[in-house]
């Protein structure tokens, strides 16, 4: 059962930002609604107004521009998973999106909404972090880029300012020798653990490693300390460093014990998934 709310239907980012500024905590942006409406139905959050942003033009395109893949915040998961361009440029993201929830949720839910809602058990943020993504935040008077590492603050909390709107996700197009993978594991509806790995292999030497872990704790985290165990190493040496990297990544996940598993269990699974991700990229 949903409580009554009023609906605002702006058609520009500036208007959205002004509405957010005017109504503050009493209003919330509504896009796909797949997560927000559930929380509202449960009575976990209550808003007097929802700001429907689906009428804002220009936020649902996927384009490659000057070495950057740009995904509009209103792109649905389904749009991402069926984009032939993304299949070619970022196959790991396409695979991740193919396995988000179910087809109905992917049809309605947007990638921007997913990131802004910052549900700890969401997939995309973790991989986007390993892909070096930046979030574009706009308000009436300004526009800035937020690195994925800076975007996720805590469970259900991002670094967006109260009147800022996420409009786009920018991902550097991976080079020819770059590879990336996202693996997740769980036995409930949402994953218990998600691990993303991106790296470049040139003539048997690894560089530009980026590792991120998610779902296990409050928010996705980058694991720079574990990356150092791969960068500049040959694939054999890196392989030998996998157990140590797994332990570091497990700790960095800030895993908590809950219905999705105990802290120790999740930390262990982080290591397992990191190893499998590495093996899938470097064989």
């Amino acid at each position, binding site marked *: 059962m*949903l*409580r*009554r*709310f*009023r*609906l605002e239907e702006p058609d520009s980012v500036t208007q959205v930002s002004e509405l957010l500024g005017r109504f503050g905590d009493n209003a919330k942006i509504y896009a796909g*609604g*797949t997560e927000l*409406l*559930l929380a509202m*139905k449960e009575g976990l959050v209550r808003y007097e107004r*929802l700001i429907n942003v689906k009428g804002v033009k220009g936020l649902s395109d996927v384009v490659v521009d000057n070495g950057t893949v740009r995904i509009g915040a209103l792109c649905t998961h389904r749009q991402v998973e069926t984009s032939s361009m993304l299949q070619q440029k970022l196959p790991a993201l396409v695979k991740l999106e*193919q396995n988000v*929830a*179910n*087809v*109905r*949720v992917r*049809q*309605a839910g947007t990638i921007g909404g997913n990131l802004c809602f910052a549900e700890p058990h969401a997939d995309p943020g973790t991989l986007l972090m390993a892909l070096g993504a930046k979030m574009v935040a706009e308000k009436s008077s300004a526009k800035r880029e937020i690195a994925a590492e800076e975007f996720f603050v805590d469970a259900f909390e991002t670094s967006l300012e109260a009147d800022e709107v996420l409009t786009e996700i920018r991902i550097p197009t991976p080079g020819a020798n770059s590879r990336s993978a996202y693996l997740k594991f769980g036995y409930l*509806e949402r994953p218990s653990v998600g691990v993303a790995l991106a790296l470049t292999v040139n003539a048997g030497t690894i560089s530009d490693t980026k590792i991120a872990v998610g779902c296990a704790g409050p928010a996705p985290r980058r694991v720079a300390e574990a990356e150092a165990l791969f960068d500049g190493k040959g694939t054999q040496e890196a392989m030998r460093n996998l157990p140590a990297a797994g332990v570091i990544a497990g700790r960095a996940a800030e895993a908590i014990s809950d219905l999705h598993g105990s802290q120790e269990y999740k930390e262990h699974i982080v290591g397992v998934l990191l190893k499998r991700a590495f093996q899938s990229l470097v064989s």
Partner: protein
Amino acid sequence: MSKAMSRQRDAQFIPVSFTLNGRSQEIEVEPHELLLDVVRDRLGLTGVKRSCDVEVCGACTLLVDGRPVSACTTLAFEVRGRSVLTIEGLAENGKLHPLQQAFIEHGGFQCGFCTPGMILAAKALLDEIPNPTEEQLKHFMHGNLCRCTGYKKIIESIMAAAKRMRSKA
């Protein structure tokens, strides 16, 4: 003035013109009304079921412009200008859709509660992929739960319908 009446006076009503099972409909909804409630309680089409209420089980699946949605978590105003198909609109001129026929012939249901959602989701699948592999079928139908059949008969039903629909096309 009663509390209910004053609340009514402040309410926001959104005109919604849409197509329901091929016929145009004009209704007014409040922003918070859910598609599931409007279709079941206001329009009287009870094939669509409320079950998990959290977009997991698929019993409330409807097709909006041919794509499956969870009506339990879709705001009713969202169907403005769109075409909604419920299980009641699937048979044409009294003739069952091949999916409905196949579910009967292959025993694709027991209690039947998940069946409207199953069949509509399967229609969306076959409209997109007329000749799915079993893997593709399972992946697409992963969000529709049945607690009776163990799924084997459902998969057989959809595969049989796909074959029949291809041979007709």
